[in-house]
C-alpha cells in the first residue's frame, strides 16, 4: 500500500539524500596554518588573484606553501578570488578564497588533492565551505 511505503524509513532516507544538490557556485575558504618559523633566506613573491590585483607574500616557507596551493588550483582551472594572510600569536595563517562552479571538481575531491600536496609540509590545512563563516559571523 502506498501509505505504508511512504512511511518506510529507508525510503524517506533515500529521498532526502537525492534532494541534496550541488549548488551553482560553492564558495570555499582554504586555510593553511603554520607555526611562525625563523627565515634563513629572504624571499618574496607576488600571486595574481581573480579580482585583478597581486598579493605579495614574504618569506621563503610562506612563498613555498602558497605556491603549492596556487599551482594545484591553476592545474584544476580554479581561479583564486582572494588571498589573505595574518600572524595570530605564534601562528601564520594564509587564506585562499575560491569559487567552485558546477563543472569544477567536488569539494571532497579538492580537499583530497590539497591534503595530498600539503601532507609533508607540516601545516594544518582546512578546506571549509564559506557557509560556516557566514553562519558564524552574520545575523
Amino acid at each position, binding site marked *: 500500500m502506498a501509505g505504508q511505503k511512504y512511511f518506510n524509513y529507508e525510503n524517506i532516507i533515500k529521498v532526502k539524500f537525492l534532494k541534496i544538490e550541488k549548488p551553482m557556485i560553492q564558495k570555499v*575558504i582554504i586555510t593553511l596554518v603554520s607555526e611562525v618559523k625563523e627565515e634563513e633566506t629572504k624571499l618574496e613573491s607576488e600571486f595574481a588573484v581573480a579580482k585583478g590585483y597581486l598579493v605579495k607574500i614574504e618569506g621563503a616557507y610562506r612563498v613555498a606553501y602558497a605556491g603549492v596551493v596556487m599551482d594545484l588550483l591553476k592545474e584544476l582551472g580554479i581561479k583564486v578570488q582572494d588571498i589573505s594572510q595574518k600572524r595570530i600569536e605564534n601562528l601564520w595563517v594564509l587564506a585562499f578564497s575560491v569559487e567552485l562552479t558546477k563543472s569544477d571538481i567536488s569539494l571532497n575531491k579538492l580537499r583530497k588533492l590539497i591534503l595530498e600536496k600539503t601532507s609533508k609540509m607540516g601545516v594544518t590545512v582546512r578546506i571549509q565551505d564559506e557557509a560556516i563563516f557566514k553562519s558564524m*559571523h552574520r545575523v
Partner: protein
Amino acid sequence: MGISAEEIFETIRMIELENLDIRTVTMGISLKECAGGNLKEVAEKIYQKIYRYASKLVSTVKYISEDFGIPIVNTRISVTPVANIIGDTTEPPIILAEALDKVAEEIGIDFIGGYSALVHKGFTRADKLLIASIPEALAKTKRLCASVNIATTRTGINMDAVRWMGEIIKETAFKTASQYGIGCCKLVVFTNAPEDNPFMAGAFHGEGEPEAVINIGISGPGVVKAAILRLGSASLGEIAETIKKTVFKITRVGEAVGREASKRLGVEFGIVDLSLAPSPRVGDSVAEIIEAMGIEKCGAPGSTAALALLVDAVKKGGAMASSYVGGLSGAFIPVSEDMGMVEAVEAGSLNLAKLEAMTAVCSLGIDMVAIPGDTPPETIASIIADVSAIGVINNKAIGVRIIPVPYKKPGDKVVFGGLLGESVIMEVSKFNSFDFIKRGGRIPAPLTSLTN
C-alpha cells in the same frame, strides 16, 4: 557580501588557539515501537531500529566536520527511557543494556544514553527492575549511560528514590572498582531532567520527542576565556556583553552543524544545548573563565557571582543565535573534566560546599565529583537531596554525578581517562543525616509564587 579576511582569521584563531569545537552531535531515537514481547525480542527490535536510523551517523558527522572545518568531539545516541519499554517482564533488563552497548559499538558512536527511569513521583514495577539493574548494566557495558529522574518542581522530591540511588551509586562504584568506580561516571541522578538533553550521562529521548531528532551540544570555554582576557581591565558589564557576542558565534556553529546533520541524515533538527562544556584539555575550562574575571582561584569568594554572570550571558547570546534552544543550557562545572576545577580542588579553594553553592546558578549540579569510597550511601543520598532541592525550588534542571571511588581517601588522585578526565578525592562532611534519609516518602512540590 563575501566573507571578510578578519572573519576568517577570527574563526581560525578560535579553532587553532582557543579549542573551539562542537562537543556532541546526539541523535535521539524513539524506541516506543520496540516495546512488547519478551526481553530478547525487545533487544532485537532495539538493535534493528537504532541501526536503521543511525548507521550513517558517525560518517555523516565526520564529513560535516571536514566540510565546515570544525572539530566535532563526540557522536552519541539517546533513546526512550528503557524502563518505559521493558513490558511485563520480571527479569532485570540487562540484555537490553547489552544490546544498546553492542549497537553503539558497531555504529562507532562514543556514548548511548537512555538506560533511564523517571520516578519523580513514584516507581512502576519496570522502574524498579531497571534501577536495580543499573550497577550490573554499567559494569557490563562500555558506552551505555544511565540516569534516574528523582524530582521535579511540579511533583517534589521522591525521597525513597533518593535513598535508593545512594545505594545504587555505591554498588555501581564497587562493581567497577578496578577502574576507580568508572560506572558512576555514566550515571546521573536528575531533577527536572530535560527531554532533549544531548549531553551524557543524562541524555534520553523524552516522551514528547519525535521519532528521531538531532540535538547539538556546543563547547567553547577556551574561546570565552580568551575573549575576556583580551578585554583587559573592562567592567563586568562589558565582560557580559563580550561573552554574549562570543557565545552567539559559538552557537551559530552548533546551529549550522545541527541543520546540516539533520539535512544529510533526513532526521528532524531538535535543539542546540547552549552549555559551555569544558574538557580536560588545558585552556578549555570553565574554572579558567571565572579566574579570567579576576577570581584568584575558582571557588574563592566571588566565584558564584562570576559564574552567574557567565551563565546568564551564555544564555542571552546563545538564545539569539539558535532557533531552538534546549537541553541543559547553562555552563557545566564537572570537576574531573575541567583541569581548572581539579587545580582549584588541589589548591584548597574549591570544596563540596562551594560547589553546591555554585550549582545554584549553573546547570548540572554536583558533577564528576570523586569522593572517598567509604562514604555511606545515606550521605550520598543526602548530597543528592540537597542538590535536588536547589533544582526543585529554582525550577531548573540539575543533577548529581558523584563517584565514591573504592579504597580511596581525600587527597588521593584518580584518572578516569578521555573526556572524563582526572580528579582529586574531595572531602565529605563527617556528620551524618541517616535519620533524615531513612524517613523516606516524598518532599511535596513547592509553591511557585511567594518566591523569596
